[in-house]
């Protein structure tokens, strides 16, 4: 575990990993759930998972729902593959004609030795009766009595709302180029993109060549890779995120550095 909690105002330049446990315990000891400050922090921390498109579910030791963020809520409310059963347990729903079973019946049996090696999480593919791509479900068992069961729900068909503005501003794309980039990121091929955008193939090819030039790549898969590696699955559906650049040595082509630098500083 390399997580780091700052203990005081002074801090070594290189972060130490072995301090973490002690600091965390001292933080736990001084906890105050009721303070507005802490609640605000908690909501902010939970929000982080929704921002990167991960459905987050926390289950108590009784395997009943404790918390679920809005991405997980959207997935569960579809009742497509996984749903909330009676009493707040997670159920695998295989469609009509199948009795639902609980998520934990499907988990591999956990060996004590696995835990010591840190293998306390499992990945499941949950098929969806609707025929959409299977959900990735990552379940992590509690590390100790002070933590709970954590479930990540990842929908490969999760809509990428709000990415458009990041792409457009970062790479200075036109609206058509942005739309094409988004469609490619969703796994469409160029012909499908043409249909969705109601444009002809040569037009799409022109947009694609300009996209390659602006993102400095040569192939479609490089383009998709670059866009995902730079932005992941950031969403901005809680409000407008604005893109600015901080200058450095390289890659200055991408950003109007001078102008933006004045804007911020």
């Amino acid at each position, binding site marked *: 575990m390399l997580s780091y909690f700052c203990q*005081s105002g002074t801090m070594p330049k290189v972060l130490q990993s072995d301090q973490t446990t002690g600091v965390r315990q001292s933080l736990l000891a001084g906890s105050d759930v009721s303070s*507005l400050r802490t609640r605000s922090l908690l909501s902010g921390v939970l929000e982080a998972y929704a921002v990167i498109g991960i459905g987050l579910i926390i289950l108590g030791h009784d395997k009943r729902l404790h918390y679920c963020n809005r991405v997980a809520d959207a997935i569960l409310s579809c009742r497509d593959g996984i749903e909330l059963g009676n009493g707040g347990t997670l159920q695998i729903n295989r469609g009509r004609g199948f009795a639902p079973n609980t998520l934990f019946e499907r988990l591999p049996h956990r060996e004590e030795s696995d835990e010591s090696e840190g293998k306390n999480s499992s990945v499941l593919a949950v098929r969806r009766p609707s025929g959409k791509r299977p959900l*990735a479900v990552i379940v992590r068992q509690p590390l100790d009595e002070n933590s709970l069961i954590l479930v990540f729900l990842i929908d490969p068909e999760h809509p990428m709302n709000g990415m458009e503005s990041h792409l457009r501003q970062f790479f200075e794309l036109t609206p058509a180029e942005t739309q094409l980039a988004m469609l490619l990121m969703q796994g469409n091929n160029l012909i499908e993109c043409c249909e969705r955008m109601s444009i002809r193939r040569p037009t799409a090819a022109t947009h694609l060549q300009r996209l390659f030039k602006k993102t400095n790549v040569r192939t479609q898969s490089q383009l998709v890779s670059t866009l995902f590696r730079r932005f992941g699955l950031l969403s901005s559906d809680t409000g407008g995120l604005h893109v600015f650049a901080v200058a450095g040595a390289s890659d200055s082509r991408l950003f109007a550095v001078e102008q933006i630098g004045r804007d911020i500083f």
Partner: protein
Amino acid sequence: MSTALISKVAIPTPLLNTVIDAFDMLRIGVLLATNTGELLFSNETATHILNSADGLAVDEKGRLTVVATDEPRFEIGAGGFRRLASMARKRNGLILSVARPSGKGTFTLTLRPFSSENLASESEIGTCMVLVHDSEHPVLDGTEGIREFYGLTQAEARVACLIMEGRTAEDCASFLGVRRSTVKMHLQNLYGKTGVQRQAELVALMFKSFGNVFCRPCVPTKMRPQFPACSRDAAC
């Protein structure tokens, strides 16, 4: 100042504890800092990034800084980060790009302020979450999950990860020291197992499934899904 803040920002419940622990399962860097730039928390990925001090680092006072080579005015020191954080507050979020002195790919920082209207008073120091996307982060780490999820062989998983990093089939062949036809064969198997038709579609699917998380799991073989037939077939 910082000590007082910590006592108020104490980890309150097993819930918060679990959620913060789980930040280490994320491939992207997560930092919590006060609006003045003092670092409160960094997850595993972010700690690696800060320790490499290439573009983004922590100074002696525990403040986030941007290590700029020839542009000192862009340093996000105390004042700089405060200004960034206040802009992030006004706009409900801020995205910026940080170039690295080493010339490697840039970082994308996403600043998210914690809603300040909930705070008891203005005098309290606000907190800001910083998400760091590292465009050079190797995809090859923590691929056991991908392998188990799609039922890939070691060689196929390696090719999938290299393709995810933006390499062409030729690059993969020279990187792995195999012939191009071998890579092509692995790619065909990958398409079959994941139910896609093209390289770019494979990249998109992989990123949308596991782009943000590490998975180091153990899944028994019988739980593997049969993708090619099932992904579009409601009957199974």
